[in-house]
């Protein structure tokens, strides 16, 4: 086999991301990589591409053991990985991006004409009408993805890995992508394809490997006769019902009432109400404005408007500080950038917001309270950390998320806004976070949860709101919701798709 993973292992502080993963990929085939979030798919791709280094094991490419120190080294050896977050330079043109790092040049001077001509050639192979002189920053997300694929082509890559390539594409663009992939396969490329979408897997893939909790579970050499249910069962390792462990609860009065909310990324003013003890899930595709809505509810960005009431009392509309004072808390989508202060300890991160309420005259901190509060939250949420002094950046994603939740538990929270609360968290911790949501809701907290994972939204929410292109478009009761019906509501329709 031209590409083989042998006993790959990788550990991060607090998590074993990969353990003894071995499988082989044939050329001229599309090999799917499936598994839940946190199963280790992205880590494996990052090791393949040289972004991470494996702690153990080896990658065999064309009979030779390879280990790339950097993504550039991997590219030069013919291994290209196309990530969800694209790696393009927005201020440079399409042509420049396509050949970034290996411009046709003579004596340090870029040969502009040749660059442009070769760019046109590559674009022709992708079959997308993109102007090579256009700045990448002005392209649509889908076009940028095509440029990213073009980059792999320009390197004449032998191995091309796609990490959830369709999550931001329209139906028409997905078709185009599949054509390109089929074309690459016929050229004998080795293609890895990471996706959650079962229908896509069965359309484009020849073989499939399932990972779970960092381990290799099974490789199907052919997908013929394999039932989707079997694959799901391998992925989750249990029946689907008990991942979320949903339990019904009584709802109280309306605790959170937001009227005519406006903000960046919202197409028109939005209304949303949550009852005490209710969990409202918001589902939408990438770019539908889910995160933007939560940020506007929290006043987390400048330029938000509208009226918010907590249990009938108007909230001063200002900054996050005012929202927190009124009992509104946010767990942001991007934990590393917006949630934690990675360099500082678990103790500091836990007490970040609440400490001033417990400080002497609001100035001198109460060290005893800080320690006991942090310890209490760590115990209650079962945060796995060597000590309270451990820098939080060294903990696993799940434990970081628990600390952020713990931060709000030491405040008087009436409404909790959760943006992708279980993204990048392993299965066990995921369940714990869901349990915590139920426990909070049972005490009368209203919860709004945003997720891009449909099963999660369906599994956890009492009521589901669907967002599409910057506005809430539908409301579905838990009992009436199915994956197909909610997804259909979230997809762009008619003239909107253009």
């Amino acid at each position, binding site marked *: 086999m031209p590409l083989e993973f042998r006993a790959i292992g990788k550990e991060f502080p607090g998590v074993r991301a990969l353990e003894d993963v071995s499988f082989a990929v044939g050329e001229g085939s599309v090999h799917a990589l499936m598994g839940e979030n946190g199963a280790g798919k992205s880590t494996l791709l990052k090791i393949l591409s040289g972004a991470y280094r494996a702690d153990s094991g080896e990658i065999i490419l064309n009979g030779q053991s390879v280990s790339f120190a950097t993504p550039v080294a991997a590219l030069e050896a013919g291994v290209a990985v196309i990530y969800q977050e694209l790696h393009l330079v927005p201020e440079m043109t399409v042509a420049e991006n396509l050949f970034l790092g290996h411009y046709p040049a003579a004596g340090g001077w870029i040969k502009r004409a040749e660059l442009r001509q070769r760019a046109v050639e590559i674009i022709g192979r992708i079959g997308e009408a993109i102007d090579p002189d256009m700045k990448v920053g002005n392209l649509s997300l889908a076009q940028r993805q095509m440029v990213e694929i073009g980059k792999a082509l320009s390197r004449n890559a032998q191995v091309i890995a796609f990490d959830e390539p369709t999550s931001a594409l329209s139906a028409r663009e997905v078709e185009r992508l599949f054509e390109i992939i089929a074309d690459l396969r016929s050229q004998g490329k080795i293609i890895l394809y990471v996706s959650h979408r079962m229908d896509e897997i069965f359309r484009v893939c020849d073989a499939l490997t399932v990972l779970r909790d960092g381990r290799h579970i099974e490789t199907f050499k052919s997908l013929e006769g394999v039932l989707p249910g079997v694959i799901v069962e391998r992925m989750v390792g249990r029946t689907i019902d008990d991942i979320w462990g949903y339990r019904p609860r009584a709802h109280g009065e309306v605790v959170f009432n937001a009227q005519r909310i406006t903000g960046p990324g919202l197409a028109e003013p939005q209304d949303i109400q949550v009852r005490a003890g209710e969990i409202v899930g918001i589902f939408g595709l990438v770019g539908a404005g889910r995160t933007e809505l939560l940020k506007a509810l929290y006043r987390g960005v400048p330029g938000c408007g509208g009226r918010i009431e907590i249990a009938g009392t108007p909230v001063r509309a200002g900054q996050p500080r005012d929202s927190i004072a009124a009992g509104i808390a946010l767990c942001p989508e991007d934990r590393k950038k*917006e949630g934690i202060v990675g*360099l500082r300890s678990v103790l500091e991160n836990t007490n970040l917001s609440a400490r001033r309420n417990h400080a002497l005259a609001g*100035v001198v901190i109460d060290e005893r309270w800080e320690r006991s509060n942090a310890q209490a939250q760590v115990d209650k949420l079962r945060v796995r950390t060597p000590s309270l002094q451990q820098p939080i950046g060294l903990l696993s994603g799940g434990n970081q998320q628990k600390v952020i939740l713990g931060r709000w538990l030491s405040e008087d929270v009436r409404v909790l806004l959760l943006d992708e609360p279980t993204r990048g968290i392993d299965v066990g911790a995921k369940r714990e976070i869901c349990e915590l949501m139920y426990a909070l809701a049972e005490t009368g907290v209203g919860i709004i949860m945003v997720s891009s994972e449909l099963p999660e939204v369906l599994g956890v929410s009492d009521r589901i709101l669907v967002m599409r292109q910057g506005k809430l478009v539908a409301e579905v009761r838990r009992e009436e919701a199915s994956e197909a019906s909610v997804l259909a509501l979230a997809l762009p329709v008619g003239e909107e798709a253009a």
Partner: protein
Amino acid sequence: MSRLWQQAGMLLVLTLLLVLSAAFVPNFTKWENVKGLLLAVSLVGMISCTMLFCLAGGDFDLSVGSTVALAGVIAALVINKYGNAPLALMIPIAAGALIGSVNGFVIARIGINALITTLAMMQIVRGVAYLISNGSSIGVFDKGLTGMATWSFGGLQASVYYMIALFAAFGFLLNRTVFGRNTLAIGGNSEAARLAGLPVVRTKVLIFMLQGAVAAFAGVILAARVSSGNPDTAKGLELQVISSCVLGGVSLTGGIGTISGMIVGVLIMGVVQNSMSLLNIDAFWQLVASGVVLLAAVMLDRLKSQKA
């Protein structure tokens, strides 16, 4: 644990330097020399207290050297005109606080980066110092003012005590107050801090205001000590101060910094310069050596943090 090792690492360097200096530098261990060394680091030491906050908060301040000079000049002008020593202390401090507030406001509220803002302020303040002094030093002869810097106790001069007092005060601020903890959180991740409800702009303005006030205080004490307000003084001081902080393990990108580490950094810088002076090494070479020490220390630090 790695932080302990990090600090212990620089403490080790300081110990090594002290042992080597004691062994090979004549007169290094003499009490007279120790007094001189402490006096020599007092200016940098005082200003390092607030620079630590600036750096830990994710910014830095290049205007402190100019502020020192301007404060000295203002103090000299005020004392010569009104003969009132408390006034000659307070007016420069107020001016320093104002300079710092402007820095802080421009950086935190308007969002101009700290390098450009404080570089511009460094030139503006230096220019003003030249303007109001007509470009030359102004003598300070009032006993009330010079007395603030020339008293001594147990053989150590006033400046050393001021430095120690500021170490204690800012140590308390950093470790025991909401302001200090917020500073580190903002420096570590200002967006996360903002979303957690921390007053990012207010904290940064306060940091820079304190920085300006402390630099001005140090400037008045310097002028009182040398009996002159000199618009030319303290050029390049900002770099010495930043160097000392970085030597003391304060992160240039924010989020990490301790008072104890900073003190070690100040002492390392001081011992190196003192030893070279005692060895009669040419002043130009001293400059080169200071740079080399800084580079070496920072690289050592990097090496360690990569291993950790």
